């Protein structure tokens, strides 16, 4: 639930008039009046505000619908389960962020939500539950599954056997019987830029294409080639993959195969997730993986599904985790040889996060790596008692893979409960960390924790870019990482050694690093009952937006949110399975406001960073602090798409204000700009067919594909 719609027009009309009639007026003086318009992109950031109406009938339905759909789809609400007390906190938080409603209306909203979406409430999300049974690949038999007790879902430690292959050469040769997108092709994806074979393009995740037909000189001639309109009303937050002329994308948990040259549809696979899934942030499936001629979908109800890439027929369906306990999956899987790697989300529900590997052919579990250290794990003492069992550490973005070391290198989300570290004393390894694990065994090789005992909701899931580069006088194998905590890191990716950490946005929590790279916290940086003002806010200096490294410019590029802050308030919270568990507290009367400076002091910029120093080389401001919300009032423009750089020194990126731009990657100069009419919140890609380079990005609920005019690609 978030903002009231009817009350916003007053705000918006006033604000517009004030802005244009009195442009010199200090915006801060009006910020309180505008507060309710700025809302929840801070919490439920990049969302298309679908106007679905699938709420159960009951007193208060209309008020909930009016208030909540202002800033997000109803699935953000209907996917949650909370006690009345926590719904009250949630609603109060929305009100504190600007939602307007009379006390009676607010009470009604709390009453309605706790009645229909209270802990243990029946399913009300769309679609029928397809029931239970055993996975069937042989299509022979099935038997009902017993519910999995929670205690069995979080055993102390389930690492696979010790890695006996360590130090042994890992073959990347393809088996003789595999066709299509073979593992070797994925390994060498940078050698076939006509395709985009993984969520991040390549294992190194650099979001750099060797294609160079579109250049700084001709980019002004780009024209729209085709559009794919999703048949979907929730967020379209997906990055496609392209293989041999076919573009595969998702719409929610559906999978679609399109001709990459014309956009015509080959097939669609429809999937209805379990109706009682716990979704913190809407039905989002960010992408797919491919192995041979099989696609892999990590569905939001924590099912991993293999799909025939030529027909859309499902091949097997494996239950990864119990969604009723809060587990979901929103990130794209990553295929490494015959392993399909997935991670789970649900950090706001007291999950125990993990990465897991499934066999690409059978769907059988191969190993599981828990992101909260249990007994016997390195760092187990960083948790007290059994808090690791509900300690969060979600893994909801796709990581990278280093074939030379056979290491999966992956960012891990924050600890839970998010805001109240008192309930989980210790550093809480491996939350808010970068971890490197063996791709064949799931065994931990190294970890680096960016925020020990994180209380700011800064998931550290941002994808690391793996780069071999001249770094301070020598060639080093490093990873480059822009963390949600506002810092840019350089780590030695073979050892995890900290090499560099510099802030790329305004921050006030870090006073430096010790020799091992552990952050030195500033005074008064812990969250508190009174509230602690922290830069950046909980949505971070950046978020899931893919970063880019260009080997031509030797620059790292990030979509940076600057000037955002949040008042962190913790609250005691008892864990209940399937209930939201974030430790958020209530704002105390007289507590300080979380508004610092003016709304216009907040903005998003594309920043080019020198990896050797962390120094900013240039920036391009893509989002202003506020813009008109199409559904009424104003909105903060918190997010952006990922970034793509090219071998012709172009940089493509889109923002929440609807502006899609091509910049000169060398200096940030704007070369081309189009108004797309909707936010862009996922990563752009590029591919090549029949002599033409294409550039694709989703905006709103559609995928847009651009290219140079026919017969004029010079």
């Amino acid at each position, binding site marked *: 639930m978030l903002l009231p719609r009817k009350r916003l027009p007053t705000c918006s009309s006033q604000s517009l008039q004030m802005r244009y009639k009195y442009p010199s007026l200090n915006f801060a003086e009006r910020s309180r009046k505008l507060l309710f318009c700025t809302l929840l992109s801070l919490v439920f950031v990049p969302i298309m505000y679908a106007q679905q109406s699938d709420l159960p009938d009951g007193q208060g339905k209309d008020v909930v619908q009016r208030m909540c759909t202002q800033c997000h789809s109803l699935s953000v609400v209907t996917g949650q389960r909370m006690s009345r007390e926590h719904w009250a906190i949630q609603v109060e938080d929305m009100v504190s962020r600007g939602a307007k409603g009379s006390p009676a209306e607010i009470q009604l909203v709390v009453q309605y939500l706790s009645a229909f979406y209270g802990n243990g409430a029946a399913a009300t999300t769309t679609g029928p539950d397809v029931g239970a049974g055993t996975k069937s690949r042989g299509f022979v038999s099935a038997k009902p599954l017993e519910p999995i007790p929670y205690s069995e879902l979080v055993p102390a430690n389930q690492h696979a056997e010790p890695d006996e292959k360590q130090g042994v050469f890992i073959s990347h040769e393809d088996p003789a019987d595999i066709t299509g997108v073979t593992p070797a092709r994925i390994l060498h994806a940078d050698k076939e830029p006509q395709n985009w074979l993984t969520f991040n393009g390549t294992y190194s995740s650099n979001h750099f294409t060797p294609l160079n037909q579109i250049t700084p000189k001709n980019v002004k001639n780009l024209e729209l080639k085709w559009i794919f309109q999703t048949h979907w009303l929730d967020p379209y937050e997906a990055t496609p993959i392209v293989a041999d002329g076919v573009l595969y994308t998702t719409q929610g948990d559906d999978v679609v195969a399109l001709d990459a*040259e014309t956009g015509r549809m*080959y097939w669609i696979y*429809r999937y209805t997730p379990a109706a009682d899934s716990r979704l913190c942030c809407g039905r989002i499936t960010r992408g797919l993986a491919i192995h041979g001629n099989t696609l892999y979908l990590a569905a939001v109800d924590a099912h991993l599904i293999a799909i025939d890439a030529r027909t859309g027929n499902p091949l097997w369906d494996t239950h990864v985790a119990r969604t009723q306990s809060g587990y979901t999956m929103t990130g794209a899987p990553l295929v490494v040889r015959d392993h399909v790697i997935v991670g789970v989300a649900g950090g706001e529900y007291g999950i125990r996060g993990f990465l897991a590997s499934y066999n690409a052919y059978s769907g059988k579990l191969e190993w599981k790596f828990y992101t909260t250290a249990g007994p016997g794990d390195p760092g187990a003492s960083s948790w007290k008692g059994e808090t690791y069992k509900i300690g969060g550490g979600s893994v909801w973005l796709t990581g990278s893979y280093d074939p030379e070391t056979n290491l999966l290198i992956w960012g891990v989300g924050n600890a839970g409960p998010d805001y109240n570290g008192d309930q989980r004393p210790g550093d809480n390894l491996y939350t808010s960390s970068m971890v490197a694990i063996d791709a064949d065994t799931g065994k931990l090789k190294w970890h680096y924790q960016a925020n020990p005992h994180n209380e700011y909701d800064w998931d550290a899931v941002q994808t690391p870019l793996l780069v071999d580069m001249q770094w301070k006088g020598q060639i080093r194998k490093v990873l480059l990482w822009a963390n949600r905590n506002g810092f840019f890191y350089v780590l030695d990716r073979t050892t995890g050694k900290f090499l560099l950490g510099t802030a790329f946005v305004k921050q006030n929590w870090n006073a430096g690093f010790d020799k091992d790279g552990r952050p030195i916290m500033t005074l008064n940086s812990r969250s508190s009952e009174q509230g602690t003002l922290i830069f950046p806010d909980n949505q971070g200096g950046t978020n899931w937006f893919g970063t880019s490294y260009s080997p031509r410019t030797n620059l790292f590029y990030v979509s940076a949110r600057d000037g955002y802050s949040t008042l962190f308030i913790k609250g005691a919270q008892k864990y209940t399975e399937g209930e939201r568990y974030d430790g958020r507290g209530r704002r105390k009367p007289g507590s300080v406001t979380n508004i610092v400076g003016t709304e216009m002091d907040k903005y998003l910029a594309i920043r080019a960073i020198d990896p050797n120093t962390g120094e900013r080389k240039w920036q391009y401001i893509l989002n202003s602090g506020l813009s008109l919300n199409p559904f009424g009032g104003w909105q903060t423009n918190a997010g952006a798409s990922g970034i793509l750089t090219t071998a012709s020194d172009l940089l493509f990126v889109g923002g929440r204000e609807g502006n899609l731009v091509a910049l000169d990657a060398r200096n940030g100069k704007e070369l081309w700009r189009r108004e797309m009419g909707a936010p862009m919140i996922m990563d752009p890609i590029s591919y090549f067919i029949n002599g033409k380079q294409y550039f694709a990005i989703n905006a709103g609920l559609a995928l847009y594909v651009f290219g140079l005019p026919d017969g004029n690609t010079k």
Partner: protein
Amino acid sequence: MTNAALFSARIFFLALFLTPAALFMHSPVAAKSTQASDGASRGQAIFEGKGNCLSCHRVADQGSYMGPDLSAIGSGRTPEELTKALLSSNAEVAPQNRLYRAITRSGKAITGRILNQDVYTIQMLTSDAHLLTLKKSGLRSFDFIDTPPMPSYRDKLTAAEQADLIAYLASLQGVIKQ
């Protein structure tokens, strides 16, 4: 031998009655408990052996893409319907399951199943299992192949074999969600 003749000679083509809405869609089927009977086991052997069904059909990750995928055929068809399709195979064939052939202006024949089309293009799954979009302006002709793709199995299998094959087909319930 032309492609069409080759395929028509080999194809085991069940007459399926899919609804238009299901034309280009696939969904996991509802869980349904089945037991692999002895008859079904024998039927599977016929399906994969004497019947040569995999030369045109696909079940899970095995077989050809020429005919319709039968992975979930048992979830939507009664044994009586399956029997009718097996013995009177070409009585009713849904368009998406008929063989389709496009011939380019240079004379190259492309055969497979049509997945989608508009005024300007055709989307096909070709007989060699490729997804392909063809511009109609570049084609000499494009149409369904009239030759019945699937022979009747009335005289090719004994009554007992037919029963076993039907038992196997009825056991195919598709992917069951765990």
